[in-house]
């Protein structure tokens, strides 16, 4: 048996976690405020849509996913005070006006015959964007200093990936004609254009792309 009094390193040889991450406390809090804002807008919309979709299976899935995203919003509400933001509402905001325009467009469909438009917005545009931004955050932040955020991101990503798969399967079962394919593609294009203009769900730099050389488009 090894001598219990012998000194050992704080990190086992297989533990390759490093300092620092790409984000400071302020930037982490800003991103998490944006996550809370968009998760809240999303769960509200899913809850509101339940009564407007006639397809029973879609109705029940929206009810379940409504809670998943509300829970993510709650996770971010709890994390913000740990990042020096004692009033979570202060940082809970859209990163720019373009993200607001995107979310307004996403939440707009209401009529019962617009289920494809509703689902495309959530499962083919927003969730892939969230999965990408959450994954970037998870990979870029320090696994030591920002471990609580990573733990929450892992929980959220699990739901996002499951939700994306379930939503995509619902869409594939609803898209039955060439006209449906066109509808879905048109809707995806509209919303992709809006989120592209926003720079992603946390604004420019959502995926860590360099924004220092950005030039104003004419």
């Amino acid at each position, binding site marked *: 048996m090894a001598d219990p009094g012998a000194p050992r390193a704080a990190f086992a040889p297989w533990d390759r976690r490093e300092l620092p991450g790409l984000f400071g406390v302020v930037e982490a809090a800003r991103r998490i405020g944006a996550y809370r804002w968009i998760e809240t807008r999303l769960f509200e919309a*899913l*809850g509101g*849509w339940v*009564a*407007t979709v006639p397809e*029973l299976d879609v*109705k*029940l899935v929206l009810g379940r996913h*409504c809670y998943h995203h509300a829970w993510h919003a709650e996770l971010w509400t709890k994390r913000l005070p740990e990042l020096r933001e004692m009033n979570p509402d202060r940082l809970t905001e859209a990163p720019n006006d373009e993200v607001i325009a995107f979310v307004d467009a996403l939440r707009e469909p209401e009529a*019962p015959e617009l289920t494809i438009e509703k689902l495309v917005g959530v499962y083919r545009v927003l969730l892939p964007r969230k999965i990408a931004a959450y994954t970037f955050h998870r990979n870029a932040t320090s696994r030591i200093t920002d471990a609580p955020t990573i733990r929450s991101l892992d929980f959220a990503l699990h739901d996002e990936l499951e939700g994306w798969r379930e939503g995509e399967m619902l869409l594939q079962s609803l898209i039955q004609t060439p006209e449906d394919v066109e509808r879905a593609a048109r809707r995806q294009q509209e919303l992709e254009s809006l989120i592209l203009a926003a720079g992603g769900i946390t604004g420019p730099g959502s995926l860590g792309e360099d924004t220092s050389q950005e030039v104003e488009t004419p």
Partner: protein
Amino acid sequence: MKKILPVEELARDSRFVRREIQDAITDPRQAIVAERNTGTARLEPDRPAAGDRARQLMHGIFVGELQALEGAGRTAFDFDDVPFQLKLDMARQCWDESRHCEISVKLSEHMGTEIGEFAEATFLYEAACAPDALLRLTGVNRALEGLAIDVFNTMKEFGDSSGDPVLSACEDWMLADEVTHVKMGSDWLRRLTENDPERRERALEFQRTVDKLFSLGGFRGETDENPIQLARKFREMAGFSTVEIDELSEVSAEAQDEARAVATARGAAA
């Protein structure tokens, strides 16, 4: 998407058939049925029509859960000026009601009925159309979910007495959730009206109105004439006082008398 979705716009597939609950309660044939001495109206397995009545009740539970899901979802969406935690509670309720719908569909198949065999009355969702969030919480979480407690407890007992452990176990799971939902409504009523007793009284008045409607002309009560029995123990767990439950019992009896009088008058006029 607009705020406040009226009941006429609830989205349904082609299997669902709607009817006005008032038409059923005041149907003149009810007076003729009431004249027959068929013994207790309670849901008991040795009655010849027990199977059909249980299947009809199961279908009613399913559409009730569907409307409770839709109501909770709309409350999460419709209000921008309510506490964040209240919205989270409504989202949680959405998930619970969604599961209850799934359970109800499975149980319906288990009991030998299917979606659309019986009509749907949408009065439950109507309580979720109130423009004030507090009224919705009293109307939906305390009145509607309170009715759900009574119904699930009755159905669970029916499962026990008819030797159906699947029915009994599933109803018990749903009952556990409903107690939580009613307690949620009781807690928010207290918190939102802590310094506003007038607002609390208005909300409770709305709840009394809804409770009378939800007594469905004698469907619920505490006598042998009522198929659904008030579940006093579970209501107490959910935050109802004994005085409140006594009042509800009286309201149910009033609703039964009124419905009987209207049905008799309609029968005489026919």
